[in-house]
């Protein structure tokens, strides 16, 4: 022990907050503390039991959320999994302009461009792949896109179930399917699908 530290401890130690007489009596304060803890304990226990029985759903038991049974709502700005938006006729909106792939700081987007046989104006992606293991979910691709073809508004987390690296590469079909599912089931439905594997682990 350094002598300086020892000295200063012995000489200069003092309490900032003065205790009142009631606090000095010690036992009333201990009982008060136990009341607070006990109240919380019994309240949580009872409310959780009621929840299990399907009662009193509106009363929140603790500040924590019973994930994955319940979940906290996500704001609209949440950057989730990508999707490729569709035109009215169901074709992909993307025109394979490579702006997202250029803006991507993680270089996770791979595009192979092709041309429609009947449309000399627009191109379309033959392959559009996002390697979600590389992706850092920064949202630059969404900002770069001039025709609103890629979005991250699905409200789901990146997938983390898979047995090989290939399982994490999301191709054009997967990304377009997500758009269709979002239109069909809405954000809530999509999230339901996402949590399902975790529910009965």
């Amino acid at each position, binding site marked *: *022990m*350094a002598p*300086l*530290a*020892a*000295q*200063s*401890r012995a000489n*200069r*130690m*003092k*309490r*900032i*907050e003065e205790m009142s007489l009631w606090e000095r009596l010690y036992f009333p304060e201990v009982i008060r503390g136990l009341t607070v803890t006990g109240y919380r304990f019994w309240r949580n226990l009872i409310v959780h039991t009621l929840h299990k029985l399907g009662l009193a759903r509106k009363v929140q038991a603790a*500040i924590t959320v019973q994930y994955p049974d319940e979940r*906290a709502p*996500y*704001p609209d*700005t*949440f*950057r989730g999994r990508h999707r490729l938006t569709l035109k009215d006729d169901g074709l992909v909106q993307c025109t394979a302009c490579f702006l997202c792939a250029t*803006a*991507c*700081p*993680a270089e996770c987007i791979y595009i192979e461009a092709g041309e429609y046989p009947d449309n000399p104006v627009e191109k379309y992606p033959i392959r559009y792949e996002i390697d979600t293991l590389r992706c*850092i*979910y*920064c*949202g*630059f691709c969404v*900002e*770069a896109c001039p025709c609103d073809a890629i979005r*991250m508004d699905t409200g789901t987390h990146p997938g983390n179930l898979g047995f090989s690296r290939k399982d994490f590469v999301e191709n054009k079909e997967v990304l377009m399917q997500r758009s269709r599912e979002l239109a069909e089931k809405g954000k809530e439905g999509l999230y339901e699908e996402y949590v399902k594997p975790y529910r009965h682990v």
Partner: protein
Amino acid sequence: MNETAPVQSQGFYAEEMTISVGPQHPSTHGVLRFVVKTDGEVINEAIPDVGYLHRSIEKIGEKVTWHGYVPYTDRADYLAAMFANQVFCMAAEKLAGTEVTRRGEFCRVIACELNRIASHLISVGTFGQDIGAMTPFVHALRERETINNLMEEICGARLTYNYIRIGGVGYDILPETCTRITEFLDHFEPIVDEFNRLLSNNKIFIERLAGVAVISKEDAFSYNLVGPNLRGCGIKWDIRRDIPYSVYPELEFEVPVGTGQVGTLGDSYDRYWVRIRELQESCKILRQCLKMFPKGPAIAKVPRKFKPPVGECYARVEAPRGDMGFYVVSDGSEYPYRVRIRTGSFTAMSIIDKLSKGIMVADLIALIGSLDVDAPEIDR
């Protein structure tokens, strides 16, 4: 010192023992290792072993575009990602002469101060946990959770924000979010007092920290300590006040310094207390910003192919762990020629070796916690 040499201490003969604290130790948040040579409970030497979290962020800077580097700066210090965002953007703007919109500046300050509260809450909460107080940690993280929700609303992510861009900010802060921030502040300010009753004024906590690991002013200067660690030694130095940037000159706030109120000036408690006071100061700044929040665009028009002229510059901000600086060199191309990051935790690490001589093993934990070193920031 020779490892096997017998050490005489208080009449007993004991051999000096070399033990390894970390990399997986509860008090070393992240991956941090100390090679500690002890004589029983007394430490003779504690050598920090850094490099476990080296991700070569600086080198990556040479390979991605100026815009594209912003998400990587998030990862430099994940507890205070907003500040690394801001300082890199400030450096790039300085180089290119880009003007930031006024609303953009306010958005930056609001986001940064929220982030500072979150970072300090982690710091004081885990500090309590290291010392042995479990409850304050939960209280601190409960409040931080609210801030994370706010951040998610502002910029779409909870930890790696990627919010501040060259020329302004990515997304505007909506009026609803402003209301929620005010609600949070109304709720949070009494919580700080509650936190003080719970932890700061706790006799056990004070006795554990008062007079432990005292840093003198000279040492603080010579080891280049920054931020709350420097202010804990009684030196009034805050980049926000002394080298003003952004809109800080228009805002009123105090710079809390250590006073040695329970022990010696510059002890662990002073460093802790400065952080608690900064929580309140940040609340004050946030309230002023929300009141003065101007209208207008949140981001200036910046070309997508951002090519600053040839040159070099250094920008610095006051991050929660002290003076954070980015030194960038441009060769006129789309990519930075060199990015160098200067962080507060790295210098704080270097003083641990000096301070740990002669203190107890348990006090080493208090010392690491009070310096608030953050492993990803040390190694980058």
